[in-house]
């Protein structure tokens, strides 16, 4: 009986918890459970979800990527400066940050797969490097329309309105970033569930040596996972710029921990016990719901961190109690 309860809470605990939170906030504030507020929540987590998908992919091959936050920061300011400083065409504005994200991923992969530095240490170092680059590049200033430089001259460009639509526009009444997010979640889920490379990635994370001895080219798989992580962080950075309409310095700093938290909450969804895309999405939704609801309760933003941390502890406790029971 006891066993059954633990089984059940492990599988559906996170979902039930979200449902309870939704009910609670809806009862408390009638505005909460409205279409526009729910869309607001989804839009607020769309950037986080992209970053978290990247973290999920790298964690799937057992590799922690700490550099995603600073990659978001770097690509955010790159996107903004490409328009405001250099007035580049829209295609380049989007492609260049993606390439940068891929390069950061390649650097991580090189250090981890080739040089064999442990993942946490390598990506920690890269986190510092990338963060330093993004501040050096902008000399520590945020980038906004026609910004004034230190020598008194003004930046020639402004944000491209088509570009801003990516982050602020709506399609059939649904915010465009939400559509992008849903497409990405479904795409990534299909990738892991139904494609050859996705399966090989999961298996490599399950047991790298067994995968290698099954003829899987594990180094290639791990390399691509870090590259994917960097690219998803870059998409997050682009969306960030499009959403706020400027290139904020250190924009990605809080993204790292929020995305990691979302992924770990996702461990407990449907009893997966390992990184999974749907779980990550649920984790991100939970984050968004909590912040939105607590803000309505007039809880200060700095206090919400306590609640986020507590929720993470709860999810991790359920997951790991269950996993250690399963072993014995």
């Amino acid at each position: 009986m006891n066993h059954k309860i633990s089984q059940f809470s492990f599988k559906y605990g996170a979902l039930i918890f979200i449902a309870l939170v939704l009910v609670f906030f809806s009862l408390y504030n009638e505005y909460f459970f409205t279409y526009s507020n729910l869309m607001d929540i989804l839009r607020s987590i769309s950037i986080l979800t992209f970053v978290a998908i990247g973290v999920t992919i790298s964690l799937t091959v057992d590799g922690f990527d700490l550099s995603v936050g600073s990659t978001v920061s770097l690509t955010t300011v790159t996107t903004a400066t490409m328009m405001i400083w250099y007035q580049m065409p829209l295609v380049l504005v989007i492609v260049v940050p993606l390439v940068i994200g891929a390069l950061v991923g390649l650097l991580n992969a090189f250090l981890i797969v080739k040089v064999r530095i442990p993942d946490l240490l390598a990506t920690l170092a890269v986190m510092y490097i990338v963060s330093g680059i993004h501040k050096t590049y902008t000399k520590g200033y945020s980038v906004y329309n026609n910004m004034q430089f230190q020598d008194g001259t003004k930046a020639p460009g402004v944000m491209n309105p088509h570009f801003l639509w990516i982050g602020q526009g709506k399609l059939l009444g649904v915010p465009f970033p939400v559509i992008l997010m849903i497409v990405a979640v479904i795409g990534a889920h299909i990738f892991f569930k139904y494609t050859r490379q996705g399966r090989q990635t999961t298996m490599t994370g399950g047991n790298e040596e067994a995968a290698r001895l099954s003829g899987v080219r594990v180094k290639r798989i791990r390399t691509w996972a870090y590259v994917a992580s960097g690219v998803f962080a870059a998409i997050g950075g682009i969306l960030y710029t499009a959403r706020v309409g400027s290139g904020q310095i250190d924009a990605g700093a809080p993204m790292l921990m929020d995305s990691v938290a979302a992924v770990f909450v996702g461990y407990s969804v449907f009893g997966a016990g390992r990184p999974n895309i749907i779980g990550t999405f649920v984790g991100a939704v939970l984050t968004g719901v909590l912040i939105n609801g607590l803000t309505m309760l007039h809880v200060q933003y700095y206090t919400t961190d306590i609640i986020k941390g507590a929720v993470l502890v709860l999810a991790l406790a359920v997951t790991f109690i269950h996993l250690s029971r399963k072993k014995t």
Partner: protein
Amino acid sequence: MNGNTLTMAGIGKSFSGVRALQGVDFTVAGGEVHALLGANGAGKSTLMKILSGAYETDEGEIRINGERLDIRSPSDAKRAGIHCVYQEVDTSLIAHLSVAENIMLDRLASPKGSAWLRWGNLHREAGEALARVGSRIPTRKRADELTLAEKQIVLLARLLVEEAKFVILDEPTAPLSLEEAERLFGIMNGLKKAGIGIVFISHRLPEVTRVSDRITVMRDGRVVLSEPAAGMQAGDIVRAMLGRSFEEEFPKTDAPIGDTLLEVKGLTAGHRVKGVDLTVREGEVVAVVGLVGAGKTELSRLLFGADPADQGEVALEGRKVASAAPADAVRSGIVLVPEERRKEGIFVGSSVLHNLSLPILKSLARFSFISGPGERRHAEDMIGRLGIKTPSPGQLTGFLSGGNQQKVAIGKWMSTDAKVFLFDEPTKGVDVGAKRDIFRIIGELARQGKGIVYLTCEFAEALGLADRILVMCDGRIVKQFARGEATQEDLLLYASAGREDLK
């Protein structure tokens, strides 16, 4: 001699109902070398684990000089003066500490004594202990800079410092070269003179008869022979080790033998594989037998490209195989069923379905999308063909029994175009029924014209299954037998004699 005597009397031990030891008597006197021999699974390591405190005995008693001991943990054994030097010396040394610190480790770890380290004394005492075993390893050298033989010497010097009365040496010569082994025997002599009683476990019979004072042979959990070493012949020992153990029934299916498939020349890697030549033909089952540590696993990993080779060539159907990685070997048609099943052969956390399809995802997928029904059909077909007992293809492989896990590890290669199958100890930890299934599968593969390399330390299996048997010892193939030419005695003799006695 100091007259210490260690007596184990009527020792019995069972593991989940299976008797591992039964009424074993064993005596070691101070200042004697007592060799303990037996085939794999005879019970000698269980007995020594009881003596060193790793296991608790179910029945019987252990006495030193008539005084009863209660050994429940390794520290109990150490307090009584019983020490064990395991084959994996690295587990007993702290790599980044100096030789002196490693020798004096117990003193350093003990809560008694001064809180301050006196480096001068430490190095002096460690140096004295080393001198007593006739070694001059610098005491300030770091442990991880030592050779394997030097590490053993450090452990033996530690025994002197800890005032051991009895020492168990578990296959100390297996990883050593001949000169290094000679030096070790010199040190053992020194320990003998210090009045220490030595239990010597080894598979190399010539050295056993030479350095031991007394020899005890175990089989099936009992002592079958215990006599002074003087005058004993290697042949007697081998007979005692094997006994008239029943020959199991191995259904050898006849398969026509065709052209040469696999040709290996001068394959070498480190100390474990030294210039191995090997050919396998279509439909042929070639067994490579050898004792544990002979280099069989290393050989199989080299052939599969899992480890890099220093020298040598592997050719399949006349074409050279560039085995930089297992993926290359698989592509050219060589596959391995590894010994460490749960770690290397299968994914315990994944379903049987996913395990079976991993190597053939390419053929199951179209435009990289895996066909769900196709994958399921393949798995169900394979489960039926190999007789894998699982409630459903979706079952996690970790929940299957050992034999069924092994069938999954084999089954994942069955649908590939592999031409050569390497099996490394495929029957380890497998029940009799599954064993028979595995032999049937191997016979079926041979009939399909596949080449089989069967690496095992179970001689009876090799005799029953193989068309040709190669005996491996110390990384070399020392002898070849055709089917029906060899007996278990022959195989054991060549596997344990080593090269020096063949010339």
